[in-house]
C-alpha cells in the first residue's frame, strides 16, 4: 500500500495528489507517468508525474475527476493509501539544448509540464511557458512555472487572465513575444494536444505531444494504448507517451479513447431523479 500524503482540490475539479512511493521518486524523470489503482476493485489508470521529492520519497500528480476511477481518487483523504502505484513508466521527455522551447500546459498538463520546463531551463534553454485554461480560476502553479520559465504566457477562454481566447492564438502571442521556438512540448487534454499540433504544423515547429490513451498495464503487455504514428503502430506506454504531434493519426486516437464510453461515461450522465432524463 502507498500512503497518501496529500489529496486536495487545488482548483475546481483538479486535485493535487501526493503519494509516498520512494522507489518511484528515486527514478522518475520529466515526462514519466505512474499507474494507480484507487482500491482493490479499481482500474489501473495512468497519471503523469508533476513533481517529486526523492529525499522524502514522494511523488506528485495533478488529476482531473472525469469518471469512476478519478472520482474514487478524489474521495481519498491524506493518510489513506492506494494499493497500486507503479512507475515511473514511459520514456522520459527528451531534454536537450534545443535553444528556445515553448512548453504548453493545460488542465492536468499545467502540472506535468512543470518538471519538463524545469529540466529544459536547467539544460540552458530559453523556456517560454504557455498555460491555457477556460478561466482564471482554473489556473494553478503559476508561481512555480514562472520560476523556471523565461516568459510565462497565459491564455484564458473568457479573458479573465492574460490573453483572451485559446490555443489558436499561439503563433500571434509568440510573435508578440518576439520568439520562434525550436521545439514545442505539449501536455494536457487530448484536444489541446491535437489542436496545438495542427497549429504548429504549417509553421514547421517541431511539436512533441504527451499522449494519453487508455491503458492497463503500462508495460507494453496489453496493446490497448496503441496508436498510429507516421503510419506505424506504436504502444504509448513503452514507445511514448511523447510523440511527434505532426505524425499522429488523431481521428483514430480520438475514436479509441471513446472505446468504453458506453460502459463508463454514459451511466454517469444518467440519473435516478425523474426530473432528469
Amino acid at each position: 500500500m502507498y500512503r497518501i500524503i496529500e489529496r486536495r482540490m487545488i482548483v475546481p475539479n483538479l486535485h493535487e495528489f501526493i503519494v509516498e512511493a520512494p522507489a518511484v521518486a528515486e527514478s522518475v524523470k520529466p515526462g514519466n507517468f505512474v499507474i494507480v489503482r484507487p482500491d482493490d476493485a479499481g482500474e489501473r489508470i495512468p497519471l503523469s508525474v508533476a513533481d517529486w521529492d526523492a529525499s522524502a520519497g514522494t511523488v506528485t500528480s495533478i488529476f482531473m475527476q472525469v469518471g469512476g476511477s478519478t472520482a474514487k481518487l478524489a474521495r481519498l483523504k491524506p493518510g489513506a493509501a492506494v494499493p497500486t502505484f507503479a512507475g515511473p513508466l514511459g520514456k522520459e521527455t527528451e531534454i536537450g539544448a534545443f535553444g528556445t522551447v515553448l512548453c504548453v500546459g493545460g488542465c492536468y498538463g499545467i502540472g506535468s509540464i512543470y518538471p519538463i520546463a524545469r529540466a529544459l531551463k536547467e539544460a540552458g534553454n530559453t523556456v517560454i511557458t504557455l498555460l491555457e485554461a477556460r478561466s482564471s480560476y482554473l489556473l494553478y502553479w503559476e508561481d512555480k512555472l514562472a520560476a523556471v520559465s523565461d516568459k510565462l504566457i497565459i491564455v484564458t477562454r473568457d479573458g479573465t487572465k492574460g490573453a483572451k481566447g485559446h490555443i489558436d492564438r499561439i503563433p500571434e502571442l509568440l510573435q508578440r513575444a518576439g520568439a520562434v521556438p525550436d521545439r514545442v512540448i505539449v501536455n494536457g487534454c487530448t484536444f489541446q494536444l491535437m489542436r496545438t499540433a495542427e497549429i504548429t504544423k504549417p509553421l514547421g515547429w517541431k511539436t512533441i505531444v504527451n499522449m494519453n490513451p487508455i491503458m492497463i498495464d503500462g508495460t507494453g503487455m496489453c496493446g490497448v494504448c496503441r496508436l498510429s504514428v507516421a503510419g506505424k503502430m506504436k504502444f504509448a506506454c513503452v514507445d511514448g507517451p511523447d510523440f511527434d504531434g505532426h505524425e499522429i493519426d488523431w481521428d483514430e486516437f480520438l475514436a479509441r479513447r471513446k472505446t468504453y464510453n458506453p460502459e463508463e461515461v454514459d451511466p454517469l450522465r444518467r440519473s435516478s431523479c425523474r426530473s432528469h432524463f
Partner: protein
Amino acid sequence: MSEEKKEKKRLDLKRRSMPKQDEHERVKNFDEVALGYPVETAIEEARRCLQCKKPLCNQGCPVGIDIPGFIKFIVEGNFSAAVKRIKETNALPAICGRVCPQEEQCEKMCVLHNKKAPICIGRLERFVADWEAAQGKAEAPAMAAKTGRKVAVVGAGPAGITVANDLALLGHEVTIYEALHECGGVLLYGIPEFRLPKAIVRREVDYVRSLGVKIVTDFVVGKTRTVDKLLEEFDAMFVGSGAGLPWFMEIPGENLNGVFSANEYLTRVNLMRGFRFPEFDTPVKRPSRVAVVGGGNVAMDSARTAVRLGADEVHLVYRRSKAELPARAEEVENAEEEGVIFDLLTLPIGLIGDEHGWLRELECLRMELGEPDASGRRKPIPVKGSNFRVPFEALVMAIGNGPNPLIPMTTPGLTLNKKGGIQTEEATGQTSRPDIWAGGDIVRGAATVISAMGDGRVAAAAIHRYLLGK
C-alpha cells in the same frame, strides 16, 4: 495362451475420463470446467500404469518427474507420498496437471500411447495436488541453513516462482520483483479462471512466500530500478519477464475500436475481473458477434471467454486446417462443445470500420493446403479471388506474443537471441552477463508453463553453484 495374448488381456486400455461441468451450464459461468477425478477413478487410472522397468514417460516431461513412482503411490492409496515424489522435481503440480500439453509431452512418450491409451498422467498429477490442498496444510519441506547470499528474481510467472522456490529451499535470500499488482504472470492474467482457478495460483504464490521469499509487486525492473542498480544489492539475478508483447497482423484496420489483443481482452477479464464489472471497475466489452484470430491456447481461451461474456456467435478464424491447430486437443474439444464456430483455412486480410471508428466487418481469404513447409506442416496458400466479408463487432488478435523488450532495452551487455529474447547458455540458463540468468518465455518466445519451470529449475541449480563458489 501365448505371452503376447496374456499381455493383451491384462492391459486396461480405457482412459478414465474426468467429469466436466455440463456444457450448457458452464458457458454461463467462469467456474472451472474440468472437475478432477474422484478417488476411485484416480486409483483405477493409476492401476492401468504398467510400471515400466525402463519408463519413457519421464523423458517426455521437461522436469523429469518420476511418473511411475508417483503413480505407484496412488495405487497404494498413499497420496501424500505421491505428492511428495512429484514435488521433488515440480513445485507446481496443481497447475501443470491442468495446463501442460500432456499429449505432446509425458503422455506422448507413454508405452500405451501407440495403443491410443496413454496413462492420464496430467489428470493424476492434478488429482494428488488437489488432494493435498484439500488436506489443508501442505507439509513443510526441509530448508537448508541460510547462506547469506541474495538473489533478485524479475517476474512472478512460473519461471520466476520456480527459481525463487528452489533457491529459498537452498538457503538463499530471494526477492521477486513483479511489474503487476498480483503474481502469477500468464497463469494469472492470461489463462482464464475456467481452466485454471486463480485460487490455485494464489495458493502457490503464498506457499513460496511461506518459504521466506520476499515479493515486491508494482515494481517494473528497468523502470522503477534498473537491473544494474539492483545488482548492487544482490549477488545474482534471474530474469523471467515473459513474452508480454502482443503481435498484430499488420493488416488495415487493426486500431479500430472493438479490436483487442488477446492479452488486453484476457487481462481485463482475468487480472482485472472485468467479467464482474461494475462491481470491479475495469470494463470489458460484451459484443454479440466476436471473431478470434489464431489457433493456439490463447485463441481458445479468448473464444471461450467471449462465449461466457454472452456473445451469440464466436468464430475462431484460423488459416490452416483442424489438424494443425496448435492448441491442446482437450481445449479444442471444450471450445467446440461450447459452441465456438471454427472458420478454418481462413485468412483475415483487413478490418472494416464505420465512420466512428468501430469495427463492423472482417475481410478474409479462403486458403488451401499446399506442400509441407519447414515446420513440417502443410503450408496454407490463399485461393485467388476468394475474398469474402463477415460482420463482427469485436475481434481478438490471438496470434502470439514476442519477448517483453523492457529488460533488454534497459540493460547493457545482454546478448539477444534470434527471437529478440535474451540469449542463454542452454545447460545453465546463464546470459552473456555472468551474474544474470534468464528463462521461460523471455528466452524461448511464447512456450509453455512447464518449459518455463524447467528453465527455472536449471537456472536455480546454476545460480546455487555460482553463489557457493563466490
